[in-house]
């Protein structure tokens, strides 16, 4: 190696990862459990958050929601507010994912102290969000039946980084050719033993095991 060759070996997204760690620290300091909720557009992220708020209402769990969208709209955050919980809307200005900087700005605007849980609804996209850590405690993906059973094979990176997988819209299984075994085999190859909950946000079926899992994570 010539003397003009400088060895670096630095992760290209290191700056994002460092900021993600500091976001994590801030959640830890106030004892708030945090979730990065990812999915393709329309998979049911907002519906799933609303069902989760509803399901934890009786336990008095306080949930803050951070809504990421590429356009300056408040459709999703209005729904959260209507459900009685605080929401911050982030407009990414066309960017197709949230990163640790955007999350930091959002938590600056949110009063974390009364909260038990923060759910970040990432931009609907199965590609970029996988590469940008936010600093949340867990990465959760909502995969929905109408998207098809081949998604783990086509978007492997997002499945590899998951802590929990939600299979949504199970009420549509009778109407759609969705081979659950094929889907699950793809997931197994990417993330062996991944914690998975099959739910319908329409009927509420399957929500209870997820809510139990979540309650176990929230330090009251």
């Amino acid at each position: 190696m010539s003397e003009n060759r400088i060895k670096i070996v630095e992760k290209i997204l290191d700056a994002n990862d460092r900021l993600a760690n500091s976001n994590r620290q801030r959640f830890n300091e106030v004892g708030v459990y945090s979730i990065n909720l990812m999915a393709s557009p329309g998979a049911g992220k907002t519906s799933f958050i609303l069902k989760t708020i509803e399901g934890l209402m009786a336990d008095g769990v306080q949930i803050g929601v951070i809504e990421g969208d590429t356009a300056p709209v408040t459709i999703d955050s209005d729904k959260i507010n209507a459900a009685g919980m605080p929401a911050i809307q982030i407009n990414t200005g066309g960017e197709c994912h949230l990163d640790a900087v955007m999350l930091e700005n959002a938590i600056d605007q949110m009063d974390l102290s009364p909260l038990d849980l923060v759910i970040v609804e990432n931009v609907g996209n199965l590609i970029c969000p996988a590469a940008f850590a936010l600093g949340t405690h867990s990465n959760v993906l909502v995969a929905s039946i109408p998207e098809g059973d081949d998604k783990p094979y086509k978007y492997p990176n997002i499945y590899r980084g998951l802590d929990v997988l939600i299979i949504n819209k199970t009420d549509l299984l009778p109407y759609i050719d969705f081979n659950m075994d094929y889907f699950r085999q793809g997931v197994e190859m990417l993330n062996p033993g991944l914690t998975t909950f099959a739910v319908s946000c329409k009927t509420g079926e399957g929500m209870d095991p997820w809510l139990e899992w979540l309650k176990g994570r929230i330090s009251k």
Partner: protein
Amino acid sequence: MHELSVTESVLEIACKHAEQARAKKVTDIYLVIGKLSSIVDDSVQFYWDFISKGTICEEATLHFKRIPAEMVCLDCNHNYTLEDELTPCPQCGSARIRVVAGDEFNLESIEVQR
């Protein structure tokens, strides 16, 4: 993947190290990118030409080293390289597999003029 933010990070890291080394100019940048990190070389190059203008890294050549995706079977310990598609262990058929290599996404070194 989001090539613009990625390219900006490459520029930031390269400039930082070049300045620390009191270099006059950066001529080459060596990136190591695993096959599993979905980065398109051509778009990084495209953004690079724009954003490196006027910096110490202007006109530096980007070199991409690709690392193949290497898997290990958790049931029989067999090692194999993934071609394009995700496939179970070719030896025992198990789907319980783990990535050994192919995730890399690093700036390995730069070549400078002092």
